[in-house]
């Protein structure tokens, strides 16, 4: 299996395809030609992207088959006003380049007990579903997909899945008129149905609210946000209690990125406020924390004793964290 370098995989860019006006698909192989670590459907990797002299760490879902570890595929949507990681992927990365990436982690696995799997995705949110459907298809599980796109030119990935899975895939918006109605899709489902949603925040909220209105319990509703929750905002400074280092967090970077740039380390996994790995104790605070994660409970947020450095910020005159 491919050797990792300081815990990072060395990936060679084998192919780059434009699949929509905004989305490129990248196919990677191990730089040394060996096998890559195996993964399960719904997994993501964190890709280290050189950009403007910095390194951006963006998490991307793996969309290739979990049963073929000779290569990994990701899809990257270009976001022009983001933190420029996706822009660097689109403009700087060429076939044959070597990129570093973390080993796969899965925060969006399929349920082992579901009797039927119901996927709802929007736009580039389709990427984890590619690998999940491949896994379920080979296991012979029951599934269906409802995919909404913004127009015919954005429907290429949806057509690929339609080709593979036929009637089990329903597209919306590819013809410029049909629209996804989540109440209709979720209503009247048999017991043991699990819903998975990946897409813009509005779509996730819509599915969760519809499912609740239909009496679904939370353990049957699974979601992953692909939108960069955008840890951008006003600058602030943070003190690391153990070293005494004072670090300035600029408007364009997250607390985690600022700490890494200053040469310190914090634990992390998803870099999107979902997994809980980077949870850090707040020792002193003069001001308020701007919680942007999906991890902390309401009571944790209110007490401001914990912060998720990968996405959350602070409006404060003093912040000391236990790191």
């Amino acid at each position: 299996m491919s050797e990792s370098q300081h815990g990072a995989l060395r990936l060679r860019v084998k192919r780059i395809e434009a699949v929509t006006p905004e989305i490129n698909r990248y196919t990677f192989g191990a730089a040394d030609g060996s096998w890559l670590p195996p993964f399960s459907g719904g997994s993501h990797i964190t890709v280290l992207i050189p950009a403007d002299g910095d390194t951006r760490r963006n998490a991307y879902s793996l969309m290739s088959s979990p049963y073929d570890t000779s290569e990994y595929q990701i899809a990257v949507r270009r976001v022009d006003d983001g933190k420029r990681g996706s822009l660097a992927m689109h403009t700087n990365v060429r076939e044959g380049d070597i990129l570093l990436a973390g080993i796969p982690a899965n925060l969006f696995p399929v349920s082992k007990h579901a009797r039927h799997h119901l996927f709802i995705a929007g736009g580039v949110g389709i990427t984890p579903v590619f690998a999940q459907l491949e896994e379920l298809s080979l296991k012979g599980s029951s599934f269906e997909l409802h995919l909404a796109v913004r127009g015919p030119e954005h429907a290429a990935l949806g057509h690929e899945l339609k080709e593979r899975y036929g009637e089990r895939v329903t597209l919306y918006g590819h013809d410029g008129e049909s629209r996804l109605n989540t109440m209709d899709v979720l209503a009247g489902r048999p017991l043991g149905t699990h819903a998975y949603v990946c897409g813009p925040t509005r779509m996730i909220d819509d599915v969760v609210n519809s499912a609740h209105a239909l009496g679904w319990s939370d353990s049957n509703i699974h979601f992953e946000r692909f939108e960069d929750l955008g840890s951008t905002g006003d600058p602030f400074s943070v003190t690391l209690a153990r070293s005494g280092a004072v670090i300035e967090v600029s408007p364009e970077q997250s607390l985690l990125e600022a700490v890494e740039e200053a040469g310190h380390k914090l634990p992390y996994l998803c870099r999107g406020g979902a997994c809980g790995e980077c949870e850090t104790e707040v020792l002193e605070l003069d001001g308020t924390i701007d919680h942007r994660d999906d991890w902390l409970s309401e009571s944790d947020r209110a007490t401001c004793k914990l912060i998720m450095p990968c996405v959350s910020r602070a409006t404060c005159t003093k912040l000391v964290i236990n790191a």
Partner: protein
Amino acid sequence: MLITGIKSRPVYDELTPMASGLIHLAAGQGSGGKALVRLLRAMTPEQLAATTVLYSTESFTGQNYLIDLQQFKVRDLAVFPTNADAVSGLDAYLATAKMGTRLYLTGSEGFIGTSMQVATSYGMNRDEVLREHAGSFVRRVWCAHCGHYSENVTHRIFECPGCELNLIVRDHYSGRLAAFQGVKADSEVPGEMPENEELDT
């Protein structure tokens, strides 16, 4: 509620209406009828109209709450002469049930356990089911040697009706089998039996 040191025994709940559900199915047996009555009393008229009750009159302790249950304006009340029939009735109901259904189980450990096996087979999750124990803690025992299930076991040592071995009932409950495990009582020294005792019934 009996407190035991048996870690594998399920931790039971108290039945109260689960407001997030749209359809309610309450299945009870014997003295569990009391918990069903309390549950139905706590429901709104809308919840009652969306509730089906399955009740088995089989009882180890002789308790019967059928007359009390008949006072409520529920969608349907189905009565069964045995627990096994009630569990079959539950299976038939869940076969066509939709997401949004909440299940309430009450009665003996064996009844709750075998009903839970059915609910699990339809993919119901723990946050869709409440279980309240009622009546005696007689045990359902699975024989590790012949696989026979014995209901209402009250003593530590008993003869398995399946293979006629003397079994000792271990304090180990299997949620999957919905039973305590019974193993040969004198396997170390044949003929040397451990002391018998009444179980925590």
